């Protein structure tokens, strides 16, 4: 099968999975859900790492990707840590 069709299939199925699981998150946890899912969107870091490190890439591409690595790392590290800080505050009596 064409790579594009495979990727598209995965995309559509993942959207359905997302809808199914996220509808179950209660309003109390909506802020941690946002900051946690935000950290997940930092997955762009994978693309940034490949482009920043690939041997033989033009210098301009590496510089752009280097800045992308910094941005995405801030997103990932900051996102997971701040979510953890918030979630640890939720207690039951």
């Amino acid at each position: 099968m064409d790579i594009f069709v495979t990727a598209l299939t995965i995309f559509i199925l993942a959207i359905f999975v997302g809808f199914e699981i996220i509808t179950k998150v209660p309003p109390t946890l909506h802020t941690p859900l946002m900051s946690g899912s935000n950290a997940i969107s930092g997955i762009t870091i994978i693309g940034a790492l490949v482009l920043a490190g690939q041997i033989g890439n033009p210098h301009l591409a590496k510089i752009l990707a280097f800045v992308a690595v910094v941005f995405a790392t801030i997103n990932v590290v900051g996102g997971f840590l701040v979510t953890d800080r918030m979630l640890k505050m939720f207690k039951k009596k």
Partner: protein
Amino acid sequence: MINVNLINIAYVLAAVLFIFDLKWMAHPKTAVRGNNIGALAMLIAIAATLLSGGLEFHYIILGIIIGSIIGAIAAMRVAMTAMPEMVGLFNGFGGGASVLVAGAALVAAMSSLAAGESDMQMKIATVASGIIGSVTFFGSYVAFGKLAEFLAVKWKLRLWQKIIKYGFSLVTAAGAIWYGYSQGISILSVVMMFSGVIIALMLLNKKDRFPGMNALKIVSAIASVVIGVMVVMNPGNTLLFWVMVGIAGILGVILTLSIGGADMPVVIALLNSYSGLAATATGFVINNNVLIIAGSLVGASGIILTQIMCKAMNRSLANVLFATLGPTADTPDADEVYKTVKSTSPEEVAMLLEDAQKVVVVPGYGMAVSQAQHAVRDLANLLESKGIEVEFAIHPVAGRMPGHMNVLLAEADIPYDKLREMDDINPSFPQVDVAIVLGANDVVNPVARTDPKSPIAGMPIIDVDKARTVVVIKRSLSPGFAGIPNPLFAMDNALMLFGDGKKEIQALIAAVKEG
């Protein structure tokens, strides 16, 4: 180099763990574990990438160190009340990273292939990633600036606010001019320079609206798509890609600039969704399934939250994005509405509380502003020690992001089972002796039920007016985000306690202790 299949299996594992992360977010008991699993998944994905071979590490290591330090410091130091700004800011970094990856991928692909030979999927995805990423980046910056109150405001700014505001505009304009100039003078390079300058000027404007805004919004939306098509047909022209990013940036700024405080929760959720979709588009650029899956999950999450917020305001998404909320010609005069307002004292309220059996607190953005959450907890504990039942009623759009109030009350150690959702607690208000409205306004305005012509008509509200007594703690009778008077304040069973939320709650505690 490690076997390609092994790397891909690691990516699948990471994707599955991301799904578990969000699944476990469904309950406060499992949510911490969920978040840890998500972090582990990210680590696995990063490790797999680094082990895939063909990489040199100096830029990677430097980038990860710098990013980790900035991210960790920001996450550890931010106050819980500033969480909406923080989430907005992190969103922006995600969007910015997507734009840069798309740009870098384009440059790399053009150098390794003869232009035109690269495949269609990569070209279209690069364009999508560039447009969505740029809208997310600039939109998130505007949301951050509006929440941190340094963009589109008239008052004097503090030093750090000035540095960010002028620094960001300067870098944007200077960057666009420098890059445009370096490409030689042509129509495209002039458009490049102009887009940077327009963004910079819009961000320096002291108002959130300006003449021609809607026209510019439509023009920039159409132009970024048209230029996107041109990039697909002519991917060798890197300048064209950055012009597209610049024009999408104008769109991102305008889309967020005109959004008012009440609509902030919707915009933050929407930008969250965009940052996920940008990551998905990047996944199509570099043909990586873990990006596609993780990005889709985030995209879906943002869309669901956006829908919930819109529903809680009885407005459509289009209405939030394109219309303005505000008083209409039919809005009654405030002086007329407030003729029968009764003001009260902490001592009087303390007496009411001592005779009460059931008390409900309704927090709003005002509680966050006056940092009153800890004082509220002390009051709740004091009342409970006297055998009085205390609960909290949370409106879905109270505060400036979804779940904002819940996080603040959790920070003050108020157990989450005391926080009740609107639909859940509304039927019990006739049995409530005292309802304390703390810094909330539009979400308790009965006009939403009674006046079909009001700008908030049909918005679900918390029925505090049905409680035996309503105490409203508020600085003045000034209107909320919707800009309309609230007849609740003048009702027979309502008492106004004028003052700062935290100070008044502390005065109440003192009065209850004395009594």
